[in-house]
């Protein structure tokens, strides 16, 4: 137990250090931190649902976009905190409706369904804006600095990881492990599979919606093709899988290096960015197939067993 407390203290210290970091960095450094933290939250939230259930979701950008768009629509009408609440509420409702509808889908059907969902929402928003409001782009003029966005995201990251930690320790976590391994067994043990999945999906989607809402003031101009950019879904997925979606810190550990790598590549190899990135992905699949964390664990185990043998 003392070890757990020690862990908490360490995490708290780490958070404090991270929160302090912007004062030491220039605007670019803050922007980098902000983007990185954004993806840490996205990947962690994605893994909350997709890690244990093994449902690969591409709906990330649907919720991200809903969050950003809500801010764009309501930023003039409501105080900022109320806008965030509304955004989270909308994300939650959509997630519940979608979750109820998709519970019976599995495997690749779910993957494509979630992708279709993101595109459907984008098309409907576009159609509504064009035909009902008569404009497409919206402007967000909120006096929120990059530092403030970063702190909000950092807070959200802490909450997300705390939720993940809490779930992994609770009875729910055990239930999830069983679902991931074998749904039939899970059903026989009396676990309410549908309820657990729905709850997780809703929590994960709400957090993702909040990321979109918090990041929106970064861009002055918002339009559907900007906030519903499917690349966000793919990047989130890749980051979480790289780190290991079943580990608490896995998604974060996937997001940080990948994000920095993208940045470095696009700065230094703008013409060959795609090729290098693609080759790296392929290399990742072959070298660390179960995510960096699991790979590191295997390596560690091997080291130790070698040491004991010697």
């Amino acid at each position, binding site marked *: 137990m003392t070890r757990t407390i020690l862990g908490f203290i360490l995490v708290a210290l780490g958070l404090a250090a991270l929160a302090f970091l912007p004062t030491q960095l220039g*605007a670019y450094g803050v922007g980098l931190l902000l983007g990185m933290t954004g993806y840490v939250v996205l990947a962690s939230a994605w893994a909350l649902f997709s890690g244990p259930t093994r449902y690969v979701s591409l709906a990330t950008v649907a919720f991200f976009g809903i969050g950003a768009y809500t801010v764009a629509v309501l930023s003039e009408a409501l105080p900022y905190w109320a806008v965030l609440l509304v955004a989270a509420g909308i994300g939650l409702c959509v997630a519940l409706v979608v979750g109820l509808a998709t519970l019976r889908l599995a495997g690749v059907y779910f993957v494509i369904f979630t992708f279709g969902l993101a595109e459907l929402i984008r098309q409907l928003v576009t159609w509504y804006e064009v035909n009902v409001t008569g404009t497409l*782009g919206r402007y967000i003029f909120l006096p929120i600095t990059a530092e403030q966005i970063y702190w909000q995201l950092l807070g959200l990251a802490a909450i997300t990881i705390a939720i993940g930690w809490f779930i992994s320790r609770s009875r729910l976590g055990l239930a999830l492990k069983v679902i991931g391994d074998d749904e039939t067994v899970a059903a026989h043990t009396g676990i309410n599979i549908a309820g657990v999945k729905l709850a997780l999906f809703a929590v994960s989607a709400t957090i993702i919606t909040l990321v979109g809402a918090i990041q929106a003031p970064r*861009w*002055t101009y918002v339009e559907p093709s900007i906030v519903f950019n499917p690349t966000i879904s793919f990047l989130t997925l890749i980051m979480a899988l790289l780190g290991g979606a079943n580990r608490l810190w896995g998604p974060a*550990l996937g997001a940080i290096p990948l994000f920095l790598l993208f940045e470095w590549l696009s700065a230094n190899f703008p013409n060959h*960015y795609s090729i290098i990135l693609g080759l790296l992905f392929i290399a990742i699949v072959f070298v660390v197939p179960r995510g960096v964390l699991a790979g590191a664990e295997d390596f560690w185990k091997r080291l130790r067993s070698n040491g004991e043998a010697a």
Partner: protein
Amino acid sequence: MTLYSRRTTLRAIGLAAALLAGAGSMAVIAQDTGDRTSVKIGYAISKTGANAGGAGITTLPNYQLWVHEVNGAGGLEMPDGSRLPIEVIEYDDRSASEEVVRAIERLATQDNVDFILPPWGTGFNLAAAPLFDRFGYPQLAVSAVTDKAPEFAARWSKSFWMLGGGHDYTEALADILTDQHEAGTINNDVAVISVADGFGIDLITAARQSFADAGINLVYDVTYPVGTTDFTPMLNEAAASGADTFVAFSYPPDTFALTQQAQVAAYNPKVLYMGVGVGFPVYAANNGDKIEGIMSLGGIDITNEAVMEYRARHTEFIGQAPDWWGSVITYNSLQMLEEAIKRRGLDREAVAEELSNGTFETVLGEVKLEDNQLRTLWFGGQWQDGNFVAVAPSDREGAVAPRLPKAPWPAQ
């Protein structure tokens, strides 16, 4: 928590800290001191992703051409007559607005560039505008058509808007249509389709107003989603509407498809006006003589020798001709920047002021901005004998009379 996962956790934190420290140290790069040997100019442009097609025609080739020419002449001229070569820092924004924002922050605070050239597209220029403003860089936004340009120029004092607003183009079109109607060439009905994206929406919104003001009937008015490939249903409906004029506020792939499909459907409106892409070199190359009489935004005064010479240089260096609308404006904006630097040096505040108030001799002739906006633009053009010539505004020197009605497609 088991012993095992705590280890993992601790290691994870350690790794995270190391990475962050790495990121931090990257941020603290010494500013360049001593005598400068170059002028750093940076830009973020969509080299990949959805916007690459547009950026690769109107914006990037002109940046490359300009840098090539300036450095070929020994570099940018300073007020004291010395020359400093341009050092380019280029990023790919991957057609994502978050990347644009970060790339510009990086250029301004990390690379400490002297000037930043704007990204491609209305949305990205708007996303970038507050940053240009905050870091004190002048922004010569070319590939951004927006009716809010006056508002933006007032909000961000160092932003310059070079391509007009939607209503400029639609009013010019309405004028042409009214003239032709009065001359008895066409009826007073117009069928319009528009792409459901920034450009299309801006123009159709303006067009509804302009057409209503001019007393033109909008008999068919629909929008279609980005990525539509089959326009046959819309062309059929437009033909059935009986309008003599067909207008499409379209993106390049749509424009190309519409041109082909209108031929197949043997749809022959007397006025055929389409959006982005009509002025692209590939459009003329693919469609040969069939482009005769097709109208669009932009246009070139082909009697202007400087412009025609620029087109030849562009074709030679890039390997393809520039488009007939935005390219020359982009090049013009770079010449203005070059001249402003020559007059005022590398002080961005002074350069912005010079851009705002100065008069410049560029490829377009004598140019002076009004309220930070370029207003001496061609708002309508038509393909005539292999050139996309300017027809509107008709009272401006160099304008050619439109040849209407457009001849039917050649028999197949």
